[in-house]
């Protein structure tokens, strides 16, 4: 039987309590963790055994919810997705600090409200003017696999904000929309069901929007989901420019199917969608 290997590591953690501390300071904890433990596991160990006052944010523990972003050994990463052994510096040291470019609520908890405000500003949902958002029951918006391919990569974003932290432009211009919201603007513009191009161009085609990006590319380097926001921003600029030059025209193109798609069969084990509980009306 294989033995569980135990590592002794030193966590150097950035602490700050806005109501008590004048400025942030570093605190060190020496803990023992098993091989394969994540940085988040180490923080749990500290809270359980040494210091219950340490604050940090997490939820899913599996790289899905995007809430555990931190500056780990100098790089923005998800604490639940990063093994301690990958980030040891000077032998057995791990440094953990809150995400920079945002205010700190306490210790490792950043105030991500500006991130979500910017995200909301680009209208991150399907816009169809004068049309129902949902197709009639039993029908669906038609979209080819090729049309899906245009944006599917950008739907993997979990809004963790790591890209915003890595971006040198966002660090110097708080008004800059930033990689995540811009990538999401492109995600919807590239969706053939969407008709909100003009609306989003007003928001993202500005001096503090897509044109502020200098393509440092760090956002894509740190993204834990392979979203590649730097690419999305360049594609967004291309859409804006080609549309200005009238090379392409934008409007929601996807049409509604006449009824259930002919020949489509439900896969075994996939349940029927529940019936609507309220009457469906087209939006006016």
């Amino acid at each position, binding site marked *: 039987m294989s033995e569980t290997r135990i590592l002794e590591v030193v966590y150097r953690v950035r602490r700050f309590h806005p109501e008590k501390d004048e400025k942030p300071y570093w605190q060190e904890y020496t803990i023992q963790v098993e091989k394969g433990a994540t940085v988040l596991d180490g923080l749990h160990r500290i809270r359980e055994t040494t210091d219950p006052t340490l604050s940090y944010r997490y939820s899913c523990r599996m790289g899905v919810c995007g809430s555990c972003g931190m500056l780990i050994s100098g790089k923005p990463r998800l604490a639940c997705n990063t093994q301690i052994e990958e980030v040891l510096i000077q032998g057995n040291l791990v440094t953990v600090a809150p995400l920079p470019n945002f205010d700190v609520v306490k210790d490792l908890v950043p105030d991500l409200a500006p991130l979500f405000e910017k995200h909301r500003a680009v209208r991150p949902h399907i816009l169809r003017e004068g049309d129902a958002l949902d197709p009639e029951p039993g029908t669906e918006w038609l979209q080819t696999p090729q049309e899906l391919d245009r944006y599917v990569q950008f739907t993997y974003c979990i809004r963790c904000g790591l890209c915003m932290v890595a971006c040198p432009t966002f660090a110097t211009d708080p008004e800059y929309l930033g990689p995540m919201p811009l990538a999401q603007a492109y995600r919807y513009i590239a969706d053939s069901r969407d008709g909100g191009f003009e609306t989003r*161009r007003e928001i993202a085609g500005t001096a503090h929007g897509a044109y502020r990006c200098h393509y440092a590319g760090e956002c894509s380097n740190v993204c834990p989901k392979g979203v590649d926001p730097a690419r999305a921003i360049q594609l967004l600029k291309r859409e804006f420019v080609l549309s200005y030059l009238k090379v392409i025209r934008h409007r929601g193109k996807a049409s509604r199917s006449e009824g259930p798609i002919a020949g489509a069969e439900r896969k075994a084990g996939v349940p029927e969608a529940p019936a609507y509980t309220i009457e469906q009306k087209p939006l006016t």
Partner: protein
Amino acid sequence: MKETRNWTWHIVAGAFIFVFLGLHMIVMHLDDVVGLFTSGVGATDWESVLGRSRMSFFAVTYVLLLGAALYHGLFGLRSILFESNVGRAWQKAINVLFWLGGLCLFAVGVFQAVTTFLHANAAVG
């Protein structure tokens, strides 16, 4: 939309500069190799200079290149200044100043290109 327009022309001007500055380099610095628009002598010899000055192609491209270079350069400088997060009033002032300054420089350049073209043709005629 305004920023999209400004940025698009910044890129178009950049592409224009790339092509016509490339042509300038070929004509002026590869004259021994390519010998384009050089009247069979060196690119900076009197015959070559006079020959090019008489051509409406050069008069027009000088003007276009000047316009593109001024727009591209001044827009780039404006972007750098805007990125130091200057206030709205300063942004407006920079816009007005750069438009006025750019138009004045363009007018001087156009005057120069046109008079050179006219004098060169008069000298021959």
